[in-house]
């Protein structure tokens, strides 16, 4: 066995160095590929969400138009029609809650806000384009003391308890999670 001379050692070191550099380059390439993929996915999600927001705004525009004209009853009937086609759509529940609140049907309005937030938490997210956080906060702030008093003076009433439970639910969703 011939002993390794300096040239051999140098050659072997260069080879090892090349392999290492190649490996690092390959790894770096994969990382940048995955980060590009991540950016693509986030973008896709954002585009899909924006499309959903636009779709909802277009879908419920006739309802909003009727509301602006002060035609609450016609707006509610339009919502009934849309609910047959999109029964689990939270946006319809939100709009229904808002209109019923304007019509002084407070208990029913609370039921619909609860249903909407259960279906889609975006409505209590301040940063969301669909947010109704301020409206829901105002609803809780004004109605919770009233319904608490009414429920205390009439502890047997199940409908009052149901409404109060709904208000507590909205309150806890506004407060956010426990982390």
């Amino acid at each position, binding site marked *: 066995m011939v002993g390794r001379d300096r040239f051999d050692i140098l050659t072997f070191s260069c080879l090892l160095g090349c392999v290492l550099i190649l490996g690092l380059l390959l790894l770096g390439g994969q990382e940048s590929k995955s980060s590009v993929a991540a950016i693509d996915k986030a973008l896709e999600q954002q585009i899909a969400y924006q499309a959903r927001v636009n779709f909802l705004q277009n879908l419920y525009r006739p309802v909003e138009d009727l509301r602006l004209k002060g*035609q*609450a009853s016609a707006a509610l009937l*339009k919502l009934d029609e849309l609910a047959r086609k999109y029964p689990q759509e939270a946006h319809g529940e939100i709009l*229904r809650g808002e209109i019923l609140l304007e*019509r002084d*049907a407070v208990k029913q309005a609370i039921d619909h806000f609860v249903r909407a937030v259960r279906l889609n938490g975006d409505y209590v997210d301040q940063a969301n384009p669909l947010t109704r956080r301020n409206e829901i906060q105002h609803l809780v702030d004004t109605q919770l003391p009233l319904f608490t008093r009414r429920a205390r003076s009439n502890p047997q009433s199940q409908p009052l308890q149901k409404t109060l439970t709904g208000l507590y639910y909205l309150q806890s969703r506004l407060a956010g999670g426990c982390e």
Partner: protein
Amino acid sequence: MKSFLIRLLPFATLFLLLLLSACQPEGTRPKMRIGYMNCNSEGETLKRFRPLTRYLSQQLGVDFEVVPVDTQDFPERFAAGEFEFTHTNSLVYLILHEENQVQLLATEKRGRYGTHTSGSIISRKGSGIKTLDDLKDKRMIFGPQLAPSGFLAQYDIMLRAGIDPEIDIAYYAIPSGSFKHEKVVYGVYFGQFDVGAAPSLDLELMVGEGRIQADDFNIIAESPIIPYCTFGARKDLDPQLVEKFRLALVNLTKGDRVTFDGENLKVLASAWVDGYETLADSDYDQLRVMARRANMPPYQEF
């Protein structure tokens, strides 16, 4: 163990006998009558409320009889003592409360406003009748006179807008026979009348069933919300029985069932009701204001 069971047998038998004697069979229990105001027709009233009445009989240990009553005859027949409990629209409840001190028990929940409802004035889409100002000199169809959301609410809307229905419109009619509210809606839909006084609940139900479309009509105006159909009790009844009656109603859930005519029925669904709730008599004040303004019973002055 065997001897213990043998010793327990007489006690168990006695307990069973006591239990059986507590459940009086139908026919041997006290009898009472519930007057149900006909909403659309007598047949419909019987079909809707017999299962609920059977359920109440079971819950209270009283044999309740269903008495279908025409709206116009209701106050008179109640005053004559023909029934102990009442189920009427909210305006007839006001009349019974003012004239006979009927006690408020529970209010029915149905439709989007729950225990409340409202009245709408409608015209056909494309008719050009879009505002209350357009109502002058038009042909209008109302529901029956004692209907809070089919007559009073719309009459009141018009008075508040400075339109006297007796003077300012060409003429108005009230459909004859049963299903008057639907006749109002279809009367406008098919162009027999220019405008109609439709209960918002009927519009909601008809749209829900696909019989009409929301876009078929202009909703020119809608009244404030007022209480819906109401159970009441004669003032001199046993307070414990009245409270049991009230609790049986407000505790009803969508899953409660009753056997009627060989069928096992859901009580609330068979009565077309979402539930019952006890309101305060003051919740009827909005209706009182409307009845006073429209010079209608129980505040009518000649």
